[in-house]
Every structure is written in structure tokens, then in C-alpha cells.
């Protein structure tokens, strides 16, 4: 029996669309690859067929589970019933033709690409507990904070690049240019050409606790997040209480007011309890790829963890081992009588490079001074 490639192509296209609808990174290019791959294997062998699709369609480990589940649902259980109702299937085409990018079904998909995106489930806050009102902000306070935060951000986020540029004097020779100079001066020794390393920016990952125990400060801290992101560009921001939410996009708008409004709508569980450990774990599992040895992790929290301390400790250990620098800002540190004795804070402390207070503009000023004293970036060589 010769496989019916006409309907097979249709089905592969449909299957790819469904993968995409479930968030798998997979478009017409992948589908075209899959069809080319099917030409190269024996499609009557179910396992060969499955592996050909599995190698070409998904691109990340997280997507393999989605693929496996959908494969069973689509090709093993779903196909029998589905094909019954399809009387007007496209004509069976030659194998080569079917696998080319120009098949009508593929083109149709490309045209409907935007519509396909809308199939993705929108965000729906499950844990709508309480929402914050951001209306009571003092404008002059904002100015001071913004300026300080920019200064702090600069301290935190610069490092040396491996790219180089010309320099008048430095400890790095520019051999290429030295030799050229040498030639130009007819073999006489004209001196040396130098280069220096460019300054590059660290990525900053900001994890901000917005739970009930931080209630008073949350508003202020979101300011901090916002200003930092505005100043650096390469900031990934997250807020957490009992669970973690990525808010980088929300904070990307130019208008502060709009950003705050959207944020309060978007973030569930604002001012609920705190599960720092499991929130950090969630961060590592879902966004751990953001961490590398050029990343500064900034955690803003009072360390009141209602979850398992061991979970927090292990998460902190992992963050420390993967990031360039871990800075913990504690808004309670400035208040008289507070000592970092909460169990969570104690578990986290050994993994923190800089532990500082962030309860008002003065404390931020102090942080800026601390950072000025020591280079924050990982010392190179």
C-alpha cells in the first residue's frame, strides 16, 4: 500500500497547528521540515513516523511532553473517528509534491498565522484575592527614587565585555594595528597600539516580594523595579507572593501610571501570604535559563517565608551557583529592632553576596555607597 501523502500532509499541518496552539514553538518552517523528514523515513512504521515528527517539530525539552500527549491523542486515538467525516479530502499527491513548502495547507496556515495565535488561552487570574490601589503616590518622592535607582542600576549592571576598542593607553596590545603601524613607518619602531575592553552590561533579574508582609513597601518597591527596568533595558522582572508572575512586559511601557494599573490587574494574589522558597523554585524551573554568570539577581523581600525552609535554602543555593551576584534587599532591615532572624532569611543569608536595606530613599542611597565601594560584577582574572 502506498501511503496517502495528500491527506497525510493535511494532517501533519493540522497536528503542527495544534502543537502551536498549546504553546510549542512550531511554525510552517518546522512543518516543512517534518514533511521532508517523513519522506526520508518509512512512514508505515509507526515508531519511525513518530520519531521523525518528534525530531523536527518541537525544539525544547519542555515541549516534548506536550508533543507526546498530543501525538497519542491525535494520531492514535483521534485519527480513526476524524477521517470518517472527511469525504472531500484533497487528491493524493505525489510524495515529493506533498512535502514541498508550497502545499495549499501550509500556505493557508501561514495566512492564518495571526488567527492561530489568538487560540492561545489568555491570562485569567485564578487567585483574585485583593487588588492594590496605587493612587496615593507622592511625585517628589518618585524623582529622588528614580535618580537613585539609575545610579544603583549602573553600579550593578556593568561589566567588561570581551569586545575591544582602540585606546590610547592600556595593558592590552592591539597586535593587528601595531604591525600596520610598524610597516607604515618602514620598519622603524613607532610604538605600540593599544586596545581596551568595552564595558558591557549585566543582565539583572529582579524578584520582588509583594505579599502581605511587605504590604507597606510593595508600592514603593514596584517603583524601584520600574525605574531599574527603565534605566537598563535588560531587566527581567518578577513579582511573587504565593506564586510567581513575570511582569517584564507590564513594566515596559513608558507611562508609570499605566504600568501600575496594568500590574495590579494582572498580578493575582497581591498582598496574600508568602511562599518565597516555592516562588524561587518556580522561577528556577520556568525561567532558570535567564541565569548565567553575567546575571545579577536582585531579590526584594523581608524573608518571612510561610513555606518549607529547606525549599528556600536549596533554591537560594542554586541561584547563587548560577548567577554572577545575588543581592538581597530587605525593607525591614532599616527599622529599629529588626534583625534578620526569620527562619527564611537565615536560610537564605549564606547565599547572598550583598544584604542591604531598602525601606526608603535614604537606604537606597546607602546601598549605592556600598556598591560603589566594591565591584559588584564578578571579578575577572
Amino acid at each position, binding site marked *: 500500500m502506498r501511503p496517502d501523502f495528500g491527506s497525510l500532509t493535511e494532517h501533519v499541518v493540522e497536528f503542527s497547528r495544534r502543537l502551536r496552539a498549546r504553546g510549542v514553538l512550531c511554525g510552517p518552517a518546522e512543518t516543512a521540515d517534518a514533511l521532508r523528514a517523513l519522506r526520508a523515513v*518509512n512512514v508505515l512504521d509507526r515508531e519511525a513516523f513518530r520519531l521523525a515528527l518528534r525530531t523536527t517539530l518541537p525544539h525544547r*525539552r519542555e515541549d516534548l511532553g506536550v508533543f507526546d500527549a498530543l501525538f497519542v491523542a491525535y494520531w492514535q486515538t483521534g485519527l480513526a473517528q476524524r477521517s470518517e467525516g472527511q469525504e472531500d479530502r484533497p487528491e493524493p499527491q505525489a510524495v515529493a509534491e506533498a512535502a514541498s513548502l508550497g502545499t495549499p495547507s501550509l500556505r493557508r496556515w501561514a495566512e492564518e498565522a495571526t488567527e492561530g495565535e489568538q487560540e492561545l488561552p489568555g491570562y485569567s487570574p485564578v487567585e483574585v484575592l485583593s487588588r492594590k490601589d496605587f493612587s496615593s503616590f507622592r511625585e517628589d518622592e518618585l524623582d529622588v527614587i528614580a535618580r537613585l535607582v539609575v545610579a544603583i542600576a549602573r553600579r550593578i549592571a556593568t561589566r567588561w565585555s570581551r569586545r575591544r576598542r582602540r585606546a590610547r593607553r592600556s595593558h592590552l596590545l592591539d597586535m593587528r594595528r601595531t604591525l600596520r603601524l610598524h610597516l607604515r613607518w618602514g620598519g622603524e619602531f613607532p610604538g605600540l597600539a593599544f586596545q581596551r575592553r568595552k564595558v558591557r552590561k549585566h543582565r539583572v533579574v529582579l524578584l520582588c516580594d509583594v505579599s502581605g508582609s511587605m504590604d507597606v513597601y510593595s508600592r514603593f518597591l514596584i517603583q524601584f523595579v520600574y525605574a531599574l527596568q527603565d534605566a537598563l533595558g535588560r531587566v527581567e522582572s518578577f513579582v511573587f507572593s504565593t506564586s510567581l508572575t513575570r511582569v517584564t512586559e507590564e513594566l515596559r511601557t513608558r507611562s508609570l501610571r499605566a504600568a501600575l494599573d496594568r500590574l495590579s490587574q494582572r498580578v493575582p494574589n497581591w498582598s496574600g501570604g508568602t511562599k518565597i522558597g516555592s516562588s524561587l523554585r518556580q522561577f528556577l524551573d520556568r525561567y532558570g535559563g535567564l541565569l548565567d554568570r553575567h546575571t545579577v539577581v536582585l531579590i526584594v523581600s523581608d524573608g518571612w517565608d510561610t513555606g518549607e525552609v529547606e525549599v528556600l535554602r536549596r533554591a537560594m543555593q542554586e541561584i547563587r551557583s548560577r548567577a554572577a551576584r545575588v543581592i538581597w534587599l530587605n525593607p525591614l532591615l532599616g527599622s529599629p529592632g529588626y534583625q534578620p532572624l526569620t527562619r527564611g532569611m537565615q536560610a537564605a543569608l549564606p547565599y547572598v553576596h550583598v544584604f542591604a536595606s531598602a525601606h526608603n530613599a535614604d537606604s537606597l542611597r546607602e546601598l549605592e555607597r556600598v556598591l560603589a565601594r566594591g565591584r559588584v560584577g564578578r571579578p575577572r582574572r
Partner: protein
Amino acid sequence: MSRPTLGDVEQILAALAQEGYIADREIATAIYLSVELHKPLLVEGAAGVGKTEIAKVMARALDTDLIRLQCYEGLDVNTALYEWNYQKQMLRIRLEEGSGRTPEEKEQTIFSEPFLLRRPLLQAITHPRAPVLLVDEIDRVDEEFEAFLLELLSDWQITIPEIGTIRAQHVPYVVLTSNRTRELSDALRRRCLYLWIDYPSFEKELAIVLRKVPGISRQLAEQIAAFLHAVRALDLQKVPGVAETLDWSAALLRLHRDHLDREAVERTLGCLFKHHEDQRVARGPWLDRVLAVIADAQRDGQSLQAALDRLERLARG
């Protein structure tokens, strides 16, 4: 143009086995399609599951050269692509002193191909026949370099200011490996076929040990594979890979052990567990229970699956 092919998936499996690499159909299919579709293969998985081996075996099976670019933090174009041979250039300048050639002529001479040091990427592009290019641990380089590599993987050309553009004669077969210490860009992922290699199953690990550790008894090999199955269910800092399994097997053999007991495991703990904390976990009462389950299973000839399930449950306390 005729390209070398690897036959079909079954033939690759056979070729891999011949090269001493125990693979499953998933791995063989990925290698096969990477060659057939001529697309780079991105291989991800924990350390020590045999990612790098894939490129080596692929080169041998295609009977071509393997060119390896080991990535590390701070890898730059001078190390990955090309560098001028300054010593040679300086010698040439000395030799040409008094030759009466103009500086421009001299400059042209010393910035030409004979004075170029070819680093892996340039080597791969200028190779007389399509080689296998292994870009190892791509997750270690920064985004900048990743972007550069992506460009290279699509255009297959390199521009050297002094010489001009060098275009690839034969597009290399590319294998990229990643330990997932950093998330790779979607663009790079989408350029590649994808293969995830998990820790081996009991059967696969047993086959690997029997194949790679000459002189080991089947009984000990089974115990080792079962023990590793139990170990990987633990919550460890560093989960041992296949490389560790092989080291450990060799160590046990050296100590003339034909079965696992507490003393043997304790003496060789360092082969498997590379963190102090992990060693502490392994030394605990968990060890006795695991050894008991393995011994029972082997003595009574129990169903294998039941024993493996019990071993996994042990890890959860």
C-alpha cells in the same frame, strides 16, 4: 552533487553499535534526519549522557573529519574563527627589510591567507569535504556569540576585512550540545533539529556497562545499573551520568568486587557522588535498603520492573 548518506535508521543503529555507542532509535533517527535534511542537530541533556559522543560517532560513520569548537565563557572570534599569525608576520617584515617594496605591498603580503591561523569555524568552512562540526556546550557562550554563530549557520560564510569573504565549499554537518545552564534563543533552536537525551534506562545502561567495561560479570553489571536507577531518583546536587557509571564500574572491577555491598560502595563513593552533601545522603540508611532490594531481586529472580519501582520509591523515603 553527491552527498554521503548514512543509509536508514537501522543501518545507523548498527553503525553506532559497531563504534561502541549504544543508542536507541530516537538518537539514531535524529542523526539520520540531521544528515538527510542537512540541518544542525541540537542535543540537550544532563552532563555525562553521551551528547558529545554523537558528533564523534557521526564523523566516523560518515568517514569524515570532526572539527570541535569547545565553548566557554568569554570565547571570542580570535579563538573560534581566525587569528593573524603575528610571529610569522614579524619575521616576514624583518626578512623584507631593504627589499625596496612599499609598505602597502608588504602589508598586503602579511595580511594574506598564508599568515592566517585557522580556528575551528574557519577550518570547518574551508575543509575540502563536508566535516562534522561539533559546537560543544553552546550554552556557555553569551548571546552575542550565539547570534554570530546563528548567522554563520545560515550563511556559511565568513568575512575577513583584509582578505574578503570566504564561502563554505561544503556545508558541514553540525552538532550543537547544551547542558542547559542558559536558555538558548528561539532563533537558534528553530534552526536546528532537536534531540533530548535522558539518563539511560536500566536496560540501556546495562548494555553500556557490559559493552564498555571488559571483564565485568553480568551479575555485577545488573547490580550497578539497578543501583544507578535508584541513585537517579534521589534529590542530588549532581546526578551521576553514564561517564560516572563507567568510572565506578571500572573502580569496582579494580577492587575485585563481584557484587555490591556497603563496604564496596563506600570505598568507591567518589566515583559517583561529586558533592559532599550527596555523599552524605548516599552513605545513610538509604544505602542498606537499596542494596537489600537489589540483592533480593537478583536472588529470587523477581520481575525487574517491580524491583526498579521499589528502588524509585526508596528515594522518596
